């Protein structure tokens, strides 16, 4: 176990925990306005302070974590769900027209500036969490397709795959039964990294008003609301910003840590 892995796991679990607990309990109702208590800095009653409507920031951050996690997680799911089969297929049919089409398609999606297309998609389909998920998810597909294909290609050269072919299994069965289990570690690590990128992307989209819509709380929109008040209530920007940074940092550390931990070669080199 490395320090990265532990720190990353702790930070990520804290965020997950905050989101999970928010279903059962938050310090206050995250939508309840209380104008007399507006713009309070962190204190004993409101641990992270209150916003310009007197809403409790701690409660908003906890519920906002749900939005961030849900959007990023489903986007990773879309990327894996479509990208992994594409990558496996491309590797199984290496050099064929199918491989060529899949890889060129990947290059094309990669060439689009993801943010611009996310904005285009949300602009066309309308702003909202679902469309943010689609926009972020589409850009996860080529990432997973590419790393799956790369890892699968080297596996196809191995003897145990040859043995499976001699045993009469076809390419689809070999991909599902022998290739996929051997690329799982890689996918978990990449999934963690894409998850953190998804959190950042969701925050960016909601910041410009294209993500989750009110009253669904989201960290990005809390920052957008804070912008005009940052001069006299900096905590409005500091609180959601810190939440985003700690989440992304935690997931990145977790990804790095998992990579080192799951890769036996690196592990042996260390001991």
């Amino acid at each position, binding site marked *: 176990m490395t320090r990265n892995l532990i720190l990353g796991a702790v930070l990520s679990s804290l965020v997950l925990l905050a989101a999970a607990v928010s279903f059962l309990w938050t310090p206050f109702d995250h939508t309840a306005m209380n104008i007399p208590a507006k713009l309070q800095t962190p204190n004993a009653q409101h641990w992270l302070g209150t916003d310009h409507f007197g809403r409790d920031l701690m409660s908003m951050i906890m519920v906002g974590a749900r939005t961030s996690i849900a959007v990023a997680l489903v986007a990773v799911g879309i990327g894996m769900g479509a990208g992994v089969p594409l990558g496996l297929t491309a590797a199984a049919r290496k050099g064929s027209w199918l491989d060529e089409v899949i890889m060129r398609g990947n290059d094309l999606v990669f060439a*689009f500036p993801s943010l611009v297309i996310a904005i285009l998609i949300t*602009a066309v389909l*309308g702003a909202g969490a679902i469309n943010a998920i689609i926009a972020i998810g589409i850009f996860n597909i080529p990432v997973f397709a590419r790393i799956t294909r790369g890892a699968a290609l080297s596996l196809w050269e191995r003897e145990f795959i040859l043995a499976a072919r001699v045993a009469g299994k076809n390419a689809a069965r070999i991909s599902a039964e022998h290739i996929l289990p051997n690329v799982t570690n890689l996918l978990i690590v990449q999934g963690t990294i894409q998850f953190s990128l998804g959190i950042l992307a969701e925050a*960016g989209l909601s910041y*410009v008003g294209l993500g989750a819509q009110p009253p669904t709380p989201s960290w990005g929109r809390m920052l957008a609301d804070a912008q005009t008040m*940052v001069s006299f209530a900096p905590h409005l920007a500091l609180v959601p*910003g810190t939440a985003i940074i700690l989440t*992304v*940092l935690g997931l*990145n550390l977790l990804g790095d840590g998992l990579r080192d931990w799951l890769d036996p070669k690196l592990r042996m080199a260390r001991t």
Partner: protein
Amino acid sequence: MLRYALKRLLSLILSLAVASLVIFLVVEVAPGDPASFMLGVNAQADTVAALKAELGLDQSKTARYLSWVAGMLGGDFGTSYTYRTPVAGMIADRMWVSLPLAFYALTLSTLIAFPAGIYAAARRGKAGDMAVMGATQLGVAVPNFWFAMMLVLIFAINLRWFGAGGFPGWEAGIWAGLHALTLPAIALALPQAAILTRVMRSALLDILDEDFMRTARAKGLTRRQALWRHGVRNALIPVLTIIGLQFSFLLAGAIIIEQVFYLPGLGRLVFQAISARDLIVVESVVMLLVFAVITVNFLVDLAYALVDPRLRSRA
């Protein structure tokens, strides 16, 4: 080399063709007809029809796609639905904010990343390396628009060294323009600098293990001399590739940063056009950004192949 270049050029043209088709189709399915949007809910049906004819919206989708592409090839991006001015002119105006901003950010990120990456690689595993790597972890985790808000809070509101936003225009002088772009450029450069530092460091570390580095040490160069004379130069190839890719990220990433600083760049143009259903502007700006990204990638590939002959055969 020529064969490789031609092959890449063909795939460049193909990518651009598919990209233009995708952008056109995505925008076409957008709900809301621009003509009725411009005229408001009380417009007569025949007025809407007349405006549609004027804007060319009554033609078939194929005809409109072809005329859009043909126009762009000749530098004509069509006429904005809302402003009734040529889109090419609007884009050109905004470009003078977005492009300098991207270059400014790229310069800053390179100026930060080179020394930081070299420093970290030279002190692999020591405290200095750990500090730099820790800083880069933080750098990639910070949303750049949040960092931008913090810069405004510290340097514009509290210290009053910079304005909190807006752009005086280049007519006000180069220094006034650069001054207004400084905070946005720093905000944009930070995550890129963090990534570039990591690339620089790992490229150098790969090279430090090479035989020619050992030879350099064996013939009596100190670690530092070997690093500077042989290491940095060889590490430049992967680093330059990333710098090329970053330029397109910066150009697109500027969209959100422009919102934070109220800069009249391409990003704000896109947002205004989206809310006004000015589809031709949205299409053209997005296409232009995609064109820039694909072309920069193409040039980086070519430059790469020129430097490293092994890559030519792989295409």
